[in-house]
Structures are given as structure tokens and as C-alpha cells.
């Protein structure tokens, strides 16, 4: 039969308080194996305290061709940022 093991994306939390971050992928036949392979491949130098593995096929990504409509409309919404508002220097804690 020889069917390739599915691909899993690996995410690592490098230390408590930080989010998991994508680091790469491994092949594994099942979730337990995917965790072990991720551990043995990506945390050999104390890179992490927690692991996520996600079947690559389960990830839906945005379409780069749609990057304009998706992300550019946010560019002119400057009023979402605190620096948009003028407050005199002597007003503190705001």
C-alpha cells in the first residue's frame, strides 16, 4: 500500500506567557506520533514548553490574490490607533 504519512504543522510555545508559533512540519501516522516527532525534531535545544500539532490539510489559508481586499481597507482607519488623538502634554495617565 505504501501511502505517505500525513503532514502535520508544528507550533511551539517557547515559554510560559507567549503564544504558540509555527516552526515547521513533520510526517506522522497519528496525533500521538505527531507530537513525539515534533518534540524529537523541534525541541532538541530547549526550544519549547508546549507543542501543538495540526494536520496540514485542516488549515485554511487566505488567498494571496485577495490580499488587497482583505487587508488594505484597514490602512486608512487611523482613528483605531491612540496616536490619532491629540491630548495636551500636561494631561497624564491617558
Amino acid at each position: 500500500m505504501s501511502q505517505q504519512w500525513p503532514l502535520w504543522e508544528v507550533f511551539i510555545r517557547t515559554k510560559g506567557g507567549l503564544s504558540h508559533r509555527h516552526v515547521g512540519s513533520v510526517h506522522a501516522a497519528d496525533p500521538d506520533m505527531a507530537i513525539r516527532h515534533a518534540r524529537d525534531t523541534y525541541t532538541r535545544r530547549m526550544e519549547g514548553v508546549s507543542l501543538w500539532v495540526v494536520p496540514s490539510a485542516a488549515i485554511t489559508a487566505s488567498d494571496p490574490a485577495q490580499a488587497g481586499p482583505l487587508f488594505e481597507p484597514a490602512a486608512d482607519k487611523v482613528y483605531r490607533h491612540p496616536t490619532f488623538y491629540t491630548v495636551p502634554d500636561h494631561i497624564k495617565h491617558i
Partner: protein
Amino acid sequence: MYTTELQKQAGVTTAEPAELLAAFEARVAADEFIEPKDWMPDAYRRTLVRQMSQHAHSEVVGMLPEGNWITRAPSLRRKAVLLAKVQDEGGHALYLYSATETLGTSREEMIDALHSGRAKYSTIFNYPTLTWADIGAIGWLVDGAAIMNQVPLQRTSYGPYARAMVRICKEESFHQRQGYEIMMALAVGTPEQKRMAQDALNRWWWPSLMMFGPPDDNSPNSAQSMRWRIKRDTNDQLRQKFVDVTVPQAEAIGLSVPDPDLKWHEDTGHYTFGAIDWEEFYAVVRGEGPVARERMQARRKAWDDGAWVRDAATAHAEKRSRRQAA
């Protein structure tokens, strides 16, 4: 471990929309990163798949010459270091296969290309490791040459490749040092140890210089690869840099570089060195290296012997999900 030595003409095809191509070239020229789902020219994709998979294959095959000495490492410390280093090579292969898979080529396809002889790997691994000193020489020279090739690739244009290279370069930093440390110990050791060290340098020096690939005037697709930031320095530039830093390292431990024409030039701050035997290089590229057969036989055997394990895990996973569904 790494090779740029085998880059061939990518075969430029032109049936692609001019405006997409222009936008792509502009992004690369502006030092932006190209990501997996972005539009890219076919030739770029093919060149990357070939270069990255070759790089991955080189890491995998590169495990064999050094793995040859794991059971014979002369101290517990050396054994652990060597095992960790060879394991790193396997890890680097894995990072690179992962990055290449984002271009739509599966690892299985790449491994099949390696085993059928369609894909190449670094010719340096088709030389044998005859004594313990070879482990020192590989770390010092081969990894030294590899690092020079790899460091610029941390800024290569394809995002997954660049990120893999960042991780690889970080991990490789101990490889060259451990190799040099082995050579240092041998060079101040017994007469037998010194003989091993000098002999290893004699055998590995020229193949190491060949690792940077053919001379620039005979490296046809360099210009395009440089423009695409798949390659960042020319073969001859990197080779010169390697000679300049490595010769003093040899002298510092009392070993002599096996090149009667090697000469230091105070005015330029560079060495000139003897002619490289490119006939030898192309013969090894053709698969005529001394242990090319052993290397491929070992890889195929490992893969074939493992088939039942891979099948069993797949079958078990299927049984388990069927049970869960029931």
C-alpha cells in the same frame, strides 16, 4: 551541509503573464519574501524544488559518512557529540524537506527521485571516512564550507527556505567547532594521531574546495539565481573566502594544506591557490565517487526495510479512527 555545486540551467519558460512576472521580480528585487501561496514563475518553483531537495538529500546522505564512526567514537563525550551532530543533519534534512513540501512536491516524491538517481546530492559525501580524523576534517572543512554557503541563504527570497536556513545556521554553529576541536586534539597527540590528522586534511581539502561548485565562468544560471536571491554570492567568491579563513586555522595547529601553489599575498590580503581538478569533480557528480554506491545502497536499504513500519503505522491509524467512528 550544503551544495550549490549542481545548479543547472532552470530552463526559462515564457508562457507566463508579463504583469505577474514583473510584479514578482519587483518584489524579489525589493527584498520581500515570497510565500507558498504567492504567484511565482514556474522556473523559480522548479529551481527552488531542485536546490532545496538537493540540499535536503545532502543532509540525509551526509549522515552516513559520519554515522560510520558513531559506534567507534573514542570517548563518551565524542560519541554523544557525534551522535547529536549526525542527528542534527537528519533534523536539517527534515526542515528542508518540510520547506520544499510547501512548493507542492511531497517528501515521498523527493525521496523517490533520490533513490532512483534522478536527484543529486553533495558529491563530498561520496568520499569515505577512513579514520577518526575524518570526523574532525568533515566538521572543520565540510561544515565550514557549508556554513559559508548557508549563511547568505538566511536572506534568500523564498520565505520557508529562509526560515529553515535560520534554524539550520543556528544549530550548525557547533558543528564546525567540534570538528576543529577533534583536529586540535589529534594534532598535538601521538605520532599516529598526527598522521591521521594530516592524512585527513590531505584527502578532504580539495573536495571541500569543490563544494562551492564550478568556477563562475562555468556556472551558467548563477545570474538568474542571484537575481532571485536563491543564491547570494558567487561560487568563486565563497571559495576564496573559505581558503582565506581556513589556511591560518590549519597552520595554527601545525597541519599543512596539501597545495604547493598556495601563496599569501600581503597586498591583496588573499591567498592564491592551485588549480582544482574539475575532471575529478564532474566524475563524482556523475556518480563515480569512491563510495557513491555504498551511500545509495544504504539509503535505499533503510527506506525499503522501513516500508513495513510505515505501512503498519498507517494501518493502525486507520483502525483507530474506524474504532473511534464506530
